[in-house]
């Protein structure tokens, strides 16, 4: 059982943090439920590895508590937490065989021989490593090494959560898919909490039930892949998730409409007036921005059309702002002049990057 709670947790690598920017992980309170498959998604340097290392106990947080099932483990050393971690580069003990590698955590904990043997064989079976047990770990390929380091975590019967720190970085693309499928399967088979750090949105969206997006040391949104796509809580999420990312247009809010460079765009909902000093943006996914003929909506200038095979994406300009729009099948683009139609149910308003709720429905 492992429900993991982070209570008012924050971390800085500096001796004395003076401003919010000094924190690698800004104050947060967050619960990871038992048995969940989480992805921790964000760009390099956003604090996701730091957060992971705090949970596993490799780093002591500057502030706050870590609780496993309500028990405060903040001061507990990593080997006494029931957690395993898989690192970006495969960590294996070169001079030992695969068998000895898998047995290593158990031997260190003084488990008896018979139990070790049974457990190692069981895990090897699970990870499809049975044939390689007698091999020296040094000569293995990266994907097998990574399986071995995962196996070292699984072999301990007390482990209730496994943390992955970009585990597929050094794996060949075609093997990535296999390993990812294996991880999903293991998650279903074993009753484990898994937290998977990545900066690859595909990896995050396919692996996790819940994706936690981090940006500059903060969790900006946590939700299902669908929620992240449909209702990004932060412009960063809109931009980071989806390909291409969400269109963001600086605008002014006027009741039920957004004004972008002289064009009024109906929002279908009323918004309260926003203070003038805040940066207000209108966000809409390219998927809900459809290119149309000349009089089909807001007039734009077409700069480029990219054929992605499955879909065509037009890079256009609306009142000087770049916008990506879907080109419907069969639409011929003639010259630079065109128009875009926005789905008014999919428009979001952001102030200083954060989603603004409408004043009334």
């Amino acid at each position, binding site marked *: 059982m492992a429900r993991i709670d982070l209570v008012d947790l924050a971390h800085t690598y500096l001796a004395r943090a003076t401003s919010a920017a000094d924190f690698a992980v800004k104050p947060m309170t967050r619960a990871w439920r038992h048995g969940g498959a989480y992805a921790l998604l964000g760009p390099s340097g956003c604090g996701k590895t730091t957060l992971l*290392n705090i949970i*596993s106990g*490799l780093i002591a947080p500057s502030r706050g508590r870590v609780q496993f099932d309500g028990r405060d483990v903040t001061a507990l*050393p*990593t*080997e006494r937490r029931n*957690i*395993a*971690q898989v*690192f*970006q*580069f495969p*960590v294996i*003990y*070169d*001079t*030992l065989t695969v068998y000895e590698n898998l047995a*290593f*955590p158990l031997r*260190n*904990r003084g488990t008896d021989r018979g139990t070790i043997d049974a457990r190692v064989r069981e895990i090897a079976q699970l990870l499809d490593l049975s044939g390689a047990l007698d091999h*020296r770990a*040094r*000569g293995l390929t990266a994907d097998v090494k990574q399986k071995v*380091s995962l196996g*070292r*975590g699984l072999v301990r019967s007390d482990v209730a959560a496994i943390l992955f720190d970009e585990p597929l970085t050094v794996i060949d693309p075609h093997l990535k898919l296999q390993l990812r499928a294996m991880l999903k399967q293991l998650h279903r088979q074993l009753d484990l909490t898994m937290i998977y750090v990545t900066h690859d949105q595909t990896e995050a969206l396919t692996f996790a039930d819940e994706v936690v997006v981090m940006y500059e040391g903060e969790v900006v949104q946590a939700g299902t892949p669908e929620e992240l796509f449909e209702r990004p809580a932060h412009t960063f999420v809109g931009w980071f998730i989806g390909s291409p990312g969400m269109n963001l247009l600086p605008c002014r809010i006027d009741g039920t409409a957004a004004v972008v460079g002289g064009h009024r765009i109906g929002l279908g909902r009323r918004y309260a007036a926003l203070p003038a000093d805040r940066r207000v943006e209108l966000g809409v996914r390219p998927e809900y921005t459809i290119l149309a003929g000349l009089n089909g909506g807001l007039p734009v200038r077409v700069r480029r059309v990219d054929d992605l095979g499955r879909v065509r994406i037009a890079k256009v300009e609306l009142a000087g702002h770049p916008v990506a729009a879907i080109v419907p099948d069969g639409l011929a683009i003639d010259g630079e002049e065109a128009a875009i139609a926005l789905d008014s149910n999919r428009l979001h308003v952001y102030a200083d990057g954060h989603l603004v709720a409408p004043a009334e429905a």
Partner: protein
Amino acid sequence: MDKQTNQRGWLLVLPVVVIVAFSAILPLMTVVNYSVQDTFGNNQFFWNGVGWFSELLDPRSELGARFLEALWRNLLFSAIVLAIEIPLGVLVALAMPRQGWTVAFCLVVMALPLLIPWNVVGTIWQIFARSDIGLLGAAVNALGLDYNYTRDSFAAWATVVVMDVWHWTSLVALLAYAGLKAIPEPFYQAARIDGASRWAVFRTIQLPKMQRVLIIAVLLRFMDSFMIYTEPFVVTGGGPGNSTTFLSIDLVKLALGQFDLGKAAAMSIVYNLIILALCWVFWTVMTKDSDARGVR
């Protein structure tokens, strides 16, 4: 066209060939030349075939016995020095700080003995260990131990060994430290998660990762200690008696003391071949285990 290119290639390696010829091949040939001749001075040489070699390799002859004695003495010295310096160097490297300003400080202090010219090291210890005026020698005597390296061969050996350890352990430590620094942090983190003890971390991570630099350290220290000349020559002059007369000291005595050029030349060649052979053995034995060299 290809032919043309190849010809120019020869021209390009010519400088190296010339340098190697003058620095290595020609002197070596001179030695080979001496080793098959006898001389009574006056630049008069007589053909002696393999005479010197058979005498040298025959333990019943005076020369052979002397050579064998010096050889064993030298092997013992190298063995003792390696047995102390390698583990000690590793221990020092493990104890060195990994970050902060103390790193630079430690590195400088460690490098100091390596920067001192060999005969200066010898002179320092020659004085330092003297039982009448030397700080170390006088202190040991004051403690009630009878210590005099000019009289007692054990004291002479101890002095030479301690001096070599003082001089060269840094080299092993610096190499081992470089090896340790190259180990990525996740290895230690994984070991902590796996609940590994300090000893297990050393056995399964640090030692295997240091293996390659330690091979280099062993080879360097073996070759150097097997060829040691200056420091014992300055401190003990090979004495008392012949007790610290190592191979190279013996060689110099033979060549310059007695001016037996032929014998000395034969001895040089055999000496050289022994070093080459032993290094090859070391290398083969120590790298036998690492089947996938160069692969992390």
